[in-house]
Structures are given as C-alpha cells and as structure tokens.
C-alpha cells in the first residue's frame, strides 16, 4: 500500500494526468476539484502529501494552505503548490502561506514525481 496523495485541482484534465503517473508510481491518489470543502477533503483523506492548485473555485490555494497550517494536524503536511501564474510574487506568496514546494504549470511529470518522493521521504 503506497503513500496517500491528495490532488486539489479544478482542471479535470490536469487532475487526470497527475493521477495517471502517480498511480503508476505506486501512490494512492485522491482528487478534489474545488476550494469550498478542500479542508474537509484533506481531513477525510488524511494524505501524506497534498498537491494544491492556486486558482480554485470557492477558495484560493493560499487560503486553504494558511488554514491548514493553522491546524495542528496539518502543520507539517508536505504541500506541493502548482500555479499557472509563474510570477515571482506568486512564489513568494506560496512560501509565505507555508508551501513545501512550488511548481509552475506547465510542469514536467518527472519533476512532479521526484518532488513528491522527496517531500514524502524527508
């Protein structure tokens, strides 16, 4: 039984791609597509790692991350942030919100995989 990864992403195609190569690599992948109940999804799935998009309907990725970090259980959950806005300001905001890693779309599948492994192992 592999480690659990939760993907919160509103673009179904992107979710499907990530799901595909993480599953192939042996991860147990859960997906969620909006910001409203993202926290509940995290609580329900109790992932070892969270892949979080920034632009989500209902609640932004930054907000979700901040709320997670305020919760004792998820203070140290590795979070990989994905964003389609690649500006330095976005990177800064992600770090401030408590992201473990920040990656810009479009990404390389191999990089995601490597980052996921690193984050979970450390």
């Amino acid at each position: 039984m592999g480690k659990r990864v939760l993907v919160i992403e509103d673009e179904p195609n992107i979710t499907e791609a990530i799901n595909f190569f993480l599953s192939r690599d042996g991860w147990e992948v859960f997906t969620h597509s909006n910001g409203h109940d993202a926290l509940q999804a995290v609580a329900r799935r109790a992932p070892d790692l969270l892949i979080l998009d920034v632009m989500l309907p209902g609640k932004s990725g930054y907000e979700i991350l901040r709320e997670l970090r305020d919760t004792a259980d998820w203070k140290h959950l590795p979070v990989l942030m994905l964003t389609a806005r690649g500006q330095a300001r976005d990177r800064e905001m992600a770090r401030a919100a408590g992201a473990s890693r920040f990656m810009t779309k479009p990404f390389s599948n191999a990089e995601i995989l490597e980052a996921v492994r690193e984050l979970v192992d450390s």
Partner: protein
Amino acid sequence: MSTLNLLILVCMLYGLFLFLVAFVAERSARRGRARWLRSPIVYTLSLSIYCTAWTFYGAVGYAARSGMEYVTIYLGPTIVMVGWWWVLRKLVRVGRSQRVTSIADLISSRFGKSNLLAVGVTILAVVAATPYIALQLQSVTLSFASFADAVGQADQVSDERSTTAFWVAMGLALFTVLFGTRNLDANERHHGVVMAIAVEAVVKLTALMAVGIFVVWGLSGGVAETFARIDASPIGHWQMDGGRWAALTFLAGAAFICLPRMFQVLVVENADEAHLRTASWAFPGYLLLMSLFVVPIAVMGLERLPAGSNPDLFVLTLPLAEGQTALAIFSFLGGFSSATSMVVVASLALATMVSNHMVMPLWLLWSGGRASVSGDVRHVVLLARRLSIAGIVALGYIYYRISGGGEALAAIGLVSFAGVAQVLPVMIAGIYWRGATRIGALAGLTVGFGLWGYTLFLPSLGAGVILSQSILDNGFLGLVWLRPQALFGIEGIDPLVHAVFWSLLLNALTFFAVSLASFPSPLERLQGAQFVNVLQQAGSARSWSAGAAQAEDLMIMAQRILGAQEAQAFFEQEAARQAGRAVRAGALPEPGPDFLQRLERELSGSVGAATAHAMVAQIVGGASVSVHELLAVADETAQMIEYSDRLQAQSRELAATAAKLREANDKLTQLSVQKDAFLSQISHELRTPMTSIRAFSEILRDTRDVSPEEQKKYSSIIHDESVRLTRLLDDLLDLSVLENGQVNLNIRRGTLREALDKAVSAAVAGDESAKLQVNRVPEEEAQTLETDFDRLGQVFINLIANARKYCDAEVPELTIHAAAMSDGRVQVDFIDNGSGIPEESRDLIFEKFSRVAPQRAGGAGLGLSICRQIMERLGGSVDYVPSPRNAHFRVTLPMAESEGPAAHRKSLVTN
C-alpha cells in the same frame, strides 16, 4: 527839455530797464543758468521789499514828527532775523516741504486744508494790503507832484495826479502779470520779479544813502556838525513811550513774517534754506544802512525847508531845494523803486491767494465736473491769477482815488501791519503746537480781525466814514466799555498800542481756548504733525523722533505682523542691544528712533516699507504720514493684492494641474494594475491547456503499456486543449483589434431573422447532444438591418452558447424575442429558464476573463467582452437585464433606413 519831462523820461527808461532785467533773469533761469539768480545776496536784497515808499520817504517824516520812534520799524525785522531765525527756518522748511504758495495756503494747509481759513486769511490780507498799495501809488504821485512844484511846473500836473497814479498802476500790473504769472508751480520761482526787486533794492539804498551823504557832508559839513544839529533839533529831545516802542517793534517784527509780500519773498521765493543764514546778518545790515541817514535828513529838512513842508517828502524836496536836480531824480527813482517793488510783490502774493482760494474754488464749483474732464486747468489758473493781479492793483488805485490821497494814508502803514499781525498766533502755533485746531484758528482770526477792524482800521478812516463820532465817544450801541479806542473802559493808552494789545491778546486767547475745546480732524492731525515735526523729518524723511511711543503697543502690532514668538524674540534682542547685556524674557526696549527704525525695517519685510512706516507712525505718533507715504501704501497694497491675485491664480492652476495629474496617475496606476491582472490572467489561461497538453504528451511518450483506449482518450485531450488554446488566442487577437478600433466591418443589408437562423444553427452545430431548446417567434424577426452580419452573428452565437453552457434548468430553454423600438432601433432579448446570474456577479460578466462558473466553461471568459466591443462598433449595445431568475441578455442595434437604398456592401474602418 524841461526837468519834469526829463524825470518822466528817466522813469520810463528805468521802467524799461527793470523789464529788461526781469526778462534777462527769466531767460537765464529758463536756460538753466540761474546760479547767480539764486545767490544769498539776491535773496537778501529781495527781502528789502519790506522797505516800501512808506519807509523810504515816511521814515524821515516819521522821525521829523515822532523822533526816534521810526527805529522800531527797522528794529522789529532785525530782531526777527537775528533772534528768531529758527522760526523763519522752520517756516521755510514747512513752506518748501508742503509746497506752500502763500501765507493763506500755509494756514489752510496746516489746519486740514481748510479753504474757509484760506479765504479768511486772503480777505484779511487784501483788506490790509489795499490801503498799503494805495499808499505806494500816492507816494509816487505825491513825489511827482512835489517835483513838479519845485521846478515850477505844478500847473501841468496838479490835475493829472490821478492820471499819474493810473499809469503807474497800469505799468505795475503789466509787469506783475508778465513776470509773475509765467508759470504756476510755486517751486518754479519768479526769477524775473525777484531779480528786478533786487535791483530796485540796490537803487533805493544807494539813492537814500546818496541823499544822506549829500546832507551830512554837503549841507551839514561833516559828521560832528550833523550830531550837533541833531542835538539842537527837537528830534534829539523826543520822549520815548516804552509801551508804544515795544508794541511797534513787535508789530514790525510780526508784519515782517506775516505780510503776504514778505512771506512771498521769505518763504515762497526761497531757493535754498542756507540763504537764510546769510540774510540773517545781511538784511539787518541793509536795514541799518537804510536807517542811517534818516535822522540827519529829517533834521536838515526841518532846518532848511520852509515850515509846513511835508516831512514825508524831505528825501526828495531837500535836494530839489538845494538845486541838486540829478540827486533829486535819483532820490525819486529810489522812492519809485520802493513803491513799485512793493506793489509788484504784494499784488503777486495776494493774487496767488485770491486766485487759488477764492477764484478757483468758485470756478470749480461753477464748472461742476467739467474741470476734471477738460483736463488742462492751467490756463484757467493763469487767467485767474492775472485777473486777480489786475483786480488787486485796481483795488489799490480805486482806494487811492476814493481816499483822495489825503494825509490819512500816512497812518495806513502801521494799521496794515496790525491787521496782518493777526495771523501771527495762528501761524506760530501752527508750526509749534500740534493741539491747534481749525476751529480754534478760525475763531482766533475772526476775533482778532474783528477787533482790529473795530479798534484800529475803522477809526483810522476818521469819524463819520463808517464809525460815527458817537460810537467812538460812547461805544457801540451806547455801551461805554465797547468804545473802539477804550475797550473795557481802559483809557489813556495810545490807540495803536490799545488795538494791537486787545486784538492780538483776545485773538491768541480765543485761538488757544477753542483749540483746546475742539477736536482736530484726521487730516488736521496729519498736517499738524507734518508742520510741527518738519525739522525732525529733515534729511531722512523716514527717521523717527522718540515720541510717546508705547513699547507695549508696538509689541502688540509687531506680534500681529511678525507672529508672537518672532516679535518677542526681536523685542528682547533689541532690549538686550540697548542694555548692552542679556535681559530677562519679556523685556521691552526703549522706543528710541534707532529701535523704531529697525522695527520698521523688520516690519517692512512683511508688509512693505510704506505700510510699515504708516503703522509705526500710527503708534508712535511722533511723525505722521505724508500724502506721499499714503500713496506709497496704496501702491504697495495694490501691488500686493495684484501679486496675491496672481499667486492665487497660479495656485488654482497648480491645483487643477495637480488634480489632473493625480487623475492621470490614478488612471495609469489602474491601467497598470489592469495590465498586470490581464497578463497574469492570460498567463493562467494559456498555461492551463498547455499543462494538460504537456502532461499527456509526456505520458504518451514516457509510459509503456498505455492501453489503446487510454491512448485515444489522451490524444483527444491533447487535441481539445490545443483547440482551446487556439480559440483563446483568436479571441485575444479579436478583442485587441476591436478595442483598438482597427476593425474592418463588412456592412450589408439583411433581416434579423437571417442573422438569428445562422447563429442558432452554428451554436448548436458543434454539440449534437445539446439539450438546449431555442424558442423563437419568426414574425418578430422581419426587421431589415444594415450591419456586419458576421460580427452580429458572433454576438448571437456567444449568447446562445452561454445559455447552453450555463443554463442550469432541468430542461434548458432559450427564448428569443425581437421588437422594433420607436427610436428606429431593434431590441433582441435572449432569455433562458435557468437561475440567472447571481447579483454580485452581474457587474463582472462583461469584464475580460470573468467566468461565473469556470469549470463548465470552454472559453477563457472573453466572450461577453468581445460581444460588448462588437455591439459598440455596430452602433448598438448588449446588456444584462437584471431579473430575479432567468438569465436575460438584451441586444439593441439600429435598423436600416426604411426607404432601403440598394443593398450595398461597403467596407469601412471605424475608428
């Protein structure tokens, strides 16, 4: 040629000579070579008009009748010149600084420029001077007659006496008009007149001395013999009346200052204050020489000439009796000079007063506002002055004719002196006492002048002329204490002393008392300060005398201008400077001239020099504000107002510019924010499909054992996302073109139905599974349009596609209604049966990249932005019609002209 004819010829030549002298002097002055004209000697000699014919002939007569008393006539002016020259200096200073034109002008100017006072003084002066002018005419006539008598040609002239006087009067008037009214400005002096009278002064002095020398050495046989004869004569034993002496001396001194003609030469014609210094010793010297031979001539006349001879003419008749015709003619010329110079200057001075204070005000009153409109009043003034001169000389002549040229005239000199002396208290107080008021001056002058007339002038005309003998004996209305020559019952005094004493005493007392009881007007205060402080203002008109300035008041004013702390600091610093050491806080400096000047300078930095001066002046009160300074204040104020107006305008402009800049900056900032947001949004919209494309192509490339189904699905995703990407780029370019206005419209005619048919079929074409039902009413769609049908179709497709994408009804339906409006437009409504757009989102839907429900949208959220741009280009609009449910969009656009010109295609570039 007879002696008489010779005399007439000499007189005429002399007259011609005087005209020439005046002419040359006048011309030199005009050419600027007036240095010699302005020498102190000329000034001193011009003062000699004090010595009129009355002095020239009369002094000898006086001595013959009253002994040494004649000396008082010389003593008064001498005392004034030597002992009172500081009063003269102040008078001259005031006269020059105030540009005074006459004594009436001086008094009027001092007391708030009151014309009433000026008129009063003028009348007084004319009344007092007219008999005096008559006296001069009489002296000429008399001397001429006695000359004729002596040479036995009396029959030729006896009936022509008045004719002589007439011609002399005419000549004098002509001379005065010619040389006295060349110019108007009191500061442009009458060089011709002054020069002529200076020459006459020399003539009369040398003539009198020539006669004197002839008498002493020619007739008497030397100085010692002369003294012996004087001792033997009754003159040497004459008793002096102390009171009368004092009165006469005082009167002569007062007259020396107050006589209009003396004021004219002393003050008005004065070219340089320094001349006064020379005159203060030279003029007494001149008087001494004039008086030197009076007694010898009188003694010798009494001795040699037959009893009953008129002693007033001894100067003339003595040489004649001794057969010295040439000397007699010279002597005659001396007397002639004395008479003429007096008449010329007196008429000039009086004419200035009459024209300035009586004729001109009347003329201005009569002409109403025209004077100021017509501009050049110069001619009127000159004419007024010339007429006044003629009038005054004529008055003298008429007086002479009426009085009959009798002996009564001899007494006129002193009566006249006493009359003008009434001005003395007002004049002296005017320049030394700031408390003197106009009302006081008027009252004093009225009392003095009235008493003079009642006690001296009218009685001098003789009983029965105006005052009856009964009034003289029993007093006015039978009141004994009102007897003209024994007021208040005090009898036994010399009538002249009596009159001078009472008139001047009551004059001065009234003046003083009324001044104390009345309040001066602001202008009087101002002028009073100017007059009284004229010497302190010397040199720097802006220096201060340490008056009763209140340091506290100055402090309060300074605080108002400089600010409390600065003023405090300045005053403490000044106090420390004065004390020479540090002082405690709040110490005030002594308001000395030095401090006041520094304070003024300090203030002038804030409010301007003139204003500062005026403000300090208000508090110090020591020196007041001149009209010039007031004008300067006005100028400064005007400049400051103008400056501040300019500043205000500038600051308004600046504020407007700043507002515009701020607006522009806000706009730019907003645009920049919008641009950033736009770029960020585009980045997101582009990266999202690219992410899918990359991720799936990597999967397809790197992963083995991908099932054929998966392969197909993933390839489809890659394909769809590529299409999406392309559409996005198309939309962006479209929007960019539309927004820049560089859009080519393909206008043609067609019906609305045509456009809708196409759009509906295109919108549903791509999706066979579309459940959206479109309801239309084809009858409504018959309107003819003249527009770009492709663009309009684009809008319709977008609206229908939106309904398809977003309508959340169980069975989605879209109803399209069209209606022609009265304003020539057609309105097309697209109404679905979904839940509509949430209220908070309605404002956003037309913005770029706005999507109410992104996950279901295929586009990038540019659709409605593009629709709005297109409708604007087509002259219409697209709006969301708010309603509680149903999404309701309304497109409005113009219909084609009804006459429908032949369908024409045209391509136009809207801008």
